[in-house]
C-alpha cells in the first residue's frame, strides 16, 4: 500500500479540505454492485443537503463475462454546495474495482484527481481480460498524473468479515461496501443512511446486514486510520429552495407524474406496455400501485401495448403506453389511429442509442424526427420533452393536461440519461397542484343526436364514452366527416379534416405559454436546447455569461407546436446554436420553420454533453479561443452489494 500524490504541497495528515463540489465515479464489473454503491452515495449526499446529479452507465444487453471491458458498469455522482444541473464533466475521484474498469474510465479523471483501485483484482488473469500487458498500477505514469491509491480491498474485506460465517463468494460481494465506506470517509459523509437502507432492505437477512455493515466500516476505518490518505474533503450543503426533498430518478418521476395526472383529472390510469430498456422501469414502478387504481398491462408486443391503451382511452381511462425507439417504431400505425380517432393518449419514449437495436443502454436524442414526423399521412401530434429527472414528473402532468384538453395523443420524450439519472426533488403538496378538468358529454336535453366530431373553440371534440345512454356512436380509422364523425370520402372534407387536425395541434400553442430566455434579451448568440441536455446547456451558458459573453439560453419544453413567440426570440440574436445528441434534428425543423441559419453542436456517442463541450462550442461560434485550450474529456465512477448485474435490451 504505497501512496504517492502528484501534489506535494498537500497539508498535514487528515486535513479536511473544503471544496464547493465534487464529481466521483464508482466503476467495476457489472456483478460488482456499482449501481447500488452509487445510489447509496447519492442518497447520503442528498440527505446531507448537497445538490446532486447522477449518471449511471451500464453495459448493453447481456452480462458480459466477468472482468471484460464489455462488462464494466459505472455510476457517477456530482454533489455540490451550489445548484448543479449535470452529473459533472470530469472526475475528481474515480474508484475502480478491476483493470477493465480502469481502462475504460481513466480518461475521464482530471489530472491530479484521486484514483482508488482495488489492487487485489489486478492479477495476471484480470489484466489479460482487460488487455493490459503489464500492470498499470506499477507504472509511474499513473502515479505522476493522479493521486493513486492502491487498496487491497478484497483482502481487507475478507479479513474484516472472517467471523461472519459467510462463504468467500458472499464475502467478496461486500467489497463494494468497503469502497463505499472508504469514499464516505474521504468526503466526510455519514454512514447512518446506508445502515438504515441495509436494515430495511435485508430485514430478513441479518447476516447480510452485518456483513455489509462491517465492510463499510472497514472502508471508513481504512481511510481514517491508515497512512494512505492524508486528507479528506468536505462539500457543504447547497442552498436549495426551502422545502422537503427526496432524491428522484427520472423514470420514477415519470411514473409518479402519470399517477398524479390521473388523480388530478379524476381518471384511472391504464398503462399498456412491453418491456424495453430504458423504459421498463416505468412499467415496473406503476405496477406497484394497484391501490391507486393503476392498471398495468404487459402486452404481447408494442403494437398491442399502444392499441390496448387506445382501447382504454376509448372507454374513458387515461391511456398510456411507454417504450423506447424500436418499440415506438412499432406503434406508429396505432398512434395514427389515435390521431384519427382524436382520443387522448400519452406515448412515452425513453430514447436510447439507435438506429435499430443500437446501443440499448446508452442515451441519445435521435427520435425527435420519429416523434414529430414519423407516421404515414399528415399526422401531427404534440410533442413534449422532459429536461431533467425531476422534470419528468411535471412533463407527464403537462402532457396529460394537453392531451385530455385537446383530444389528441401526445408524445412525451425522455432519454436514458435523465431516466436513470437522479436529482433532488422538491416534494410537492398534491393538494396544491392544479386540477385537470375533464368533461364527458351527456345526452343533450333536447334529444339532439350526439355529434362526436363537433368541436370547441380550440377544435377539440367531445370525449363521449361507452356506457352513456343516447351517445352511441362508432369511430374508426377511415377519414370521417367533421361534426358527425361518419365515414366520408369527399375531397373537400378530407382536406378540411387534415387542416383541422393540424390546426388543433397548433392551437396547443395557446395553452403552453411563451418561450422564456435566460440571459440577455438580445445578443450575439442564443443556445437553443431541448430535453435532457438542459443541464449541460444551462451550466455552459451561465459559465460563459460569467465570462462576459453575450449569450442566452432558451430551452424548449414543447417541440410541437413551438411557443408562439419562438420566431421572434430567435430573431433577437445574431446566431443560434442548437446542441443535440443527434445529427441535428431540432435544428432542421427550426431552420425550416424560421429560416434562421441555426448551427448545431452534435454528439452521438451514447453519452450526454459535457459542460465544457458546450462552452467550447459557444466560444467557437463567437470566434473566441477556447477557455482552457484542452479538449474536454468525459467525467466520474467505484464498485460492491452485487445485484443481478446491470444490463438491458
Amino acid at each position, binding site marked *: 500500500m504505497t501512496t504517492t500524490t502528484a501534489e506535494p504541497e498537500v497539508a498535514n495528515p487528515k486535513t479536511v479540505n473544503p471544496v464547493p463540489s465534487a464529481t466521483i465515479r464508482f466503476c467495476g464489473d457489472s456483478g460488482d454492485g456499482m449501481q447500488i454503491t452509487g445510489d447509496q452515495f447519492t*442518497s447520503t449526499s*442528498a*440527505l*446531507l*443537503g448537497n445538490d446532486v446529479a447522477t449518471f449511471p452507465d451500464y453495459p448493453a444487453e447481456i452480462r458480459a463475462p466477468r472482468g471484460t471491458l464489455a462488462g464494466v458498469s459505472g455510476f457517477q455522482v456530482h454533489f455540490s454546495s451550489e445548484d448543479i444541473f449535470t452529473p459533472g464533466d470530469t472526475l475528481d475521484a474515480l474508484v475502480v474495482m478491476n483493470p477493465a474498469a480502469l481502462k475504460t474510465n481513466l480518461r475521464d479523471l482530471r489530472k491530479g484527481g484521486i484514483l482508488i483501485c482495488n489492487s487485489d483484482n489486478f492479477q495476471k488473469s484480470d489484466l489479460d481480460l482487460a488487455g493490459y500487458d503489464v500492470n498499470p498500477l506499477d507504472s509511474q505514469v499513473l502515479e505522476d498524473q493522479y493521486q493513486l491509491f492502491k487498496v487491497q480491498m478484497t483482502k481487507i474485506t475478507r479479513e474484516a468479515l472472517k467471523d461472519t460465517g459467510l462463504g468467500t463468494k458472499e464475502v467478496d460481494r461486500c467489497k463494494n461496501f468497503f469502497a463505499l465506506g472508504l469514499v464516505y470517509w474521504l468526503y466526510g459523509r455519514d454512514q447512518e*443512511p446506508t445502515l*438504515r*437502507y441495509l436494515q430495511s432492505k435485508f430485514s430478513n437477512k441479518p447476516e447480510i446486514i452485518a456483513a455489509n455493515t462491517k465492510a463499510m466500516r472497514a472502508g471508513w476505518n481504512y481511510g481514517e486510520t491508515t497512512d494512505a490518505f492524508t486528507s479528506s474533503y468536505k462539500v457543504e450543503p447547497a*442552498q*436549495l*429552495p*426551502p422545502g*422537503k*426533498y*427526496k432524491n428522484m430518478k427520472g423514470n420514477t418521476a415519470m411514473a*409518479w407524474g402519470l*399517477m398524479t395526472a390521473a*388523480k388530478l383529472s379524476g381518471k384511472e390510469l391504464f398503462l*399498456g406496455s412491453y418491456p424495453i430498456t430504458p423504459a421498463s422501469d416505468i412499467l415496473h414502478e406503476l405496477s406497484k*400501485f*394497484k*391501490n*391507486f*387504481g393503476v*392498471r398495468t*398491462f404487459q*402486452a*404481447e408486443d408494442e*403494437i*398491442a*401495448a399502444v*392499441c*390496448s*391503451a387506445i*382501447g*382504454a*382511452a*376509448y372507454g*374513458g381511462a387515461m391511456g398510456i403506453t411507454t417504450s423506447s425507439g424500436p418499440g415506438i417504431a412499432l406503434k406508429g400505425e*396505432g398512434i395514427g*389511429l389515435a390521431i384519427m*380517432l382524436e382520443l387522448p393518449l400519452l406515448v412515452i419514449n425513453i430514447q436510447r442509442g439507435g438506429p435499430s437495436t443500437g446501443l440499448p443502454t446508452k442515451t441519445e436524442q435521435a427520435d425527435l424526427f420519429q416523434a414529430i414526423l414519423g407516421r404515414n399521412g399528415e399526422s401531427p401530434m404534440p410533442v413534449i420533452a422532459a429536461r431533467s429527472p425531476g422534470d419528468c414528473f411535471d412533463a407527464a402532468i403537462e402532457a396529460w393536461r394537453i392531451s385530455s384538453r385537446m383530444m389528441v395523443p401526445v408524445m412525451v420524450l425522455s432519454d436514458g440519461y435523465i431516466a436513470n439519472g437522479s436529482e433532488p426533488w422538491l*416534494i410537492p*403538496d*398534491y*393538494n396544491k397542484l392544479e386540477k385537470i378538468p375533464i368533461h364527458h358529454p351527456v345526452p343533450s336535453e333536447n334529444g339532439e343526436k350526439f355529434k362526436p366530431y363537433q368541436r370547441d373553440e380550440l377544435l377539440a371534440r367531445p370525449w363521449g364514452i*361507452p*356506457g*352513456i*345512454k*343516447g*351517445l*352511441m*356512436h*362508432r*369511430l*374508426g*380509422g377511415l377519414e370521417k366527416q367533421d361534426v358527425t364523425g*361518419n*365515414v366520408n370520402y369527399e375531397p373537400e372534407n378530407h382536406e378540411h379534416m387534415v387542416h383541422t387536425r393540424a390546426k388543433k395541434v397548433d392551437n396547443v400553442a395557446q395553452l403552453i405559454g411563451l418561450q422564456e430566455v435566460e440571459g440577455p434579451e438580445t445578443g450575439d448568440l442564443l443556445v437553443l436546447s431541448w430535453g435532457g441536455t438542459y443541464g449541460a446547456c444551462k451550466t455552459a451558458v451561465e459559465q460563459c455569461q460569467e465570462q462576459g459573453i453575450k449569450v442566452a439560453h432558451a430551452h424548449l419544453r414543447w417541440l410541437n407546436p413551438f411557443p408562439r413567440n419562438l420566431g421572434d426570440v430567435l430573431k433577437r440574436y445574431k446566431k443560434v446554436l442548437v446542441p443535440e445528441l443527434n445529427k441535428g434534428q431540432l435544428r432542421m425543423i427550426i431552420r425550416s420553420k424560421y429560416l434562421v441559419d441555426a448551427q448545431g453542436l452534435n454528439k452521438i456517442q451514447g453519452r450526454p454533453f459535457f459542460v465544457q463541450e458546450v462552452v467550447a462550442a459557444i466560444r467557437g461560434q463567437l470566434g473566441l479561443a477556447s477557455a482552457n485550450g484542452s479538449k474536454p474529456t468525459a467525467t466520474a465512477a467505484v464498485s460492491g452489494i452485487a445485484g443481478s448485474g446491470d444490463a438491458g435490451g
Partner: protein
Amino acid sequence: MPTELPTLTPADFASDQDVRWCPGCGDYAILAQMKKVMPQLGVARENVVFISGIGCSSRFPYYMNTYGLHSIHGRAPAFATGLKSSRQDLQVWVVTGDGDGLSIGGNHFMHLIRRNVDLKIMLFNNRIYGLTKGQYSPTSPLGKVSVSTPMGAIDNPLNPLSVAIGCEATFVARSIDVNIKHLGEVMKRAAEHKGTAFIEIYQNCNVFNDGAWDYATSKETKHDNVLELEHGKPLIFGKAKNKGIRLNGTHPEVVELGKGISEDDLLFHDEKAPEPTLAYLLSRMRHPEFPEPIGVFRDVDGPKYDVELNRQITAAREKKGEGDLNALYNSGETWTVG
C-alpha cells in the same frame, strides 16, 4: 348492475349507416342474427361495444346501434383487452376476419385467447381476403388459386379452432352464416360464457370465394358434412341420423349406426371436459374425411385476465387503502432544507 331494460327489437340495434357489403354476402345473415340476439341478452345498448379490425367483416360495428370501434388491421383484440380491462361494466364483442384475425392479427388472437379476457370474438371465415379483392388467406386450402397464388397456395392452412384450443381457449364454437337459428344460439352461448368466447363462423364471400362452404350449406350435402354437437350426446349425423363418430385410440372414425353399432358405442360430446384434448380432436375432423362439427366444442371456466386485474386492484385497495399521493411523495429517505 342489471337495471330494468326496455324491450328492444332487432331494429333498435340497427345504426343509421348504409350497409355496404356486396349483395348476397354472408355477412348480412350474421348481422341479422346479431341484431336478433342482442335484445335477448339483457344488456343495455349503451353498454355494448363492437370492436373490429379492417376487412369486409370489420365493417360490422358501423351497422350496430351500440358503441363501436373500427380500428386497424388485426389489432382489435388489443383494443378490446384495454377497454374491457378498464371497463368491466361493458359487454365487448370483437369482429374479425380470417385475414384480420389469423394473419396480421394472429399474435393478438393467441394472447387474447390465453388471457381469457371476458369478451366475445367472432371470426368471419370466408377463406379469402375480401376487402383487398381476393388474395388467399391463412384458412385457404392448399392449392387455392388466387390473385397472389396463380399456381395455387402452398401454405398449410390454419384451423382456427385448433389454434384457439392450442392457445388454452375456454370457449370455442363454430357456426355457419346461413344456419341462422344455430348461429343465433351459438351467439347466445358465447354471450353467456365468462371469459373469451371464440366463434368461427363459416361465411360465404360470394364475390371472391363463392361456394367455399357449399359442402356445409347446400341442401343435398350438408347433413352428411356437418355434425351438430350437443353436450352429453353421442356424435350422430347424416340426413337419416344414421351415422356416428366412434373413437379408436385417439382417432375418430365414421361408423354407421345399426349393424351391431349402437349409440352407446359412439363418442359422447363433453363441452365441459377439463382437458381440451376432446375439443382438439373434434377440431381436427375436416371435410371430406369427416363431417365437420358445429356448435360449442368447449365451454369451461378459467381465470379471466380482466377480472383478475380488477380483483388485484380491489385487493390492493383493501390491503393498503386507497393510494395517497402525498404519502407516496414523502416516502423513503427525505430531507428538509431551510
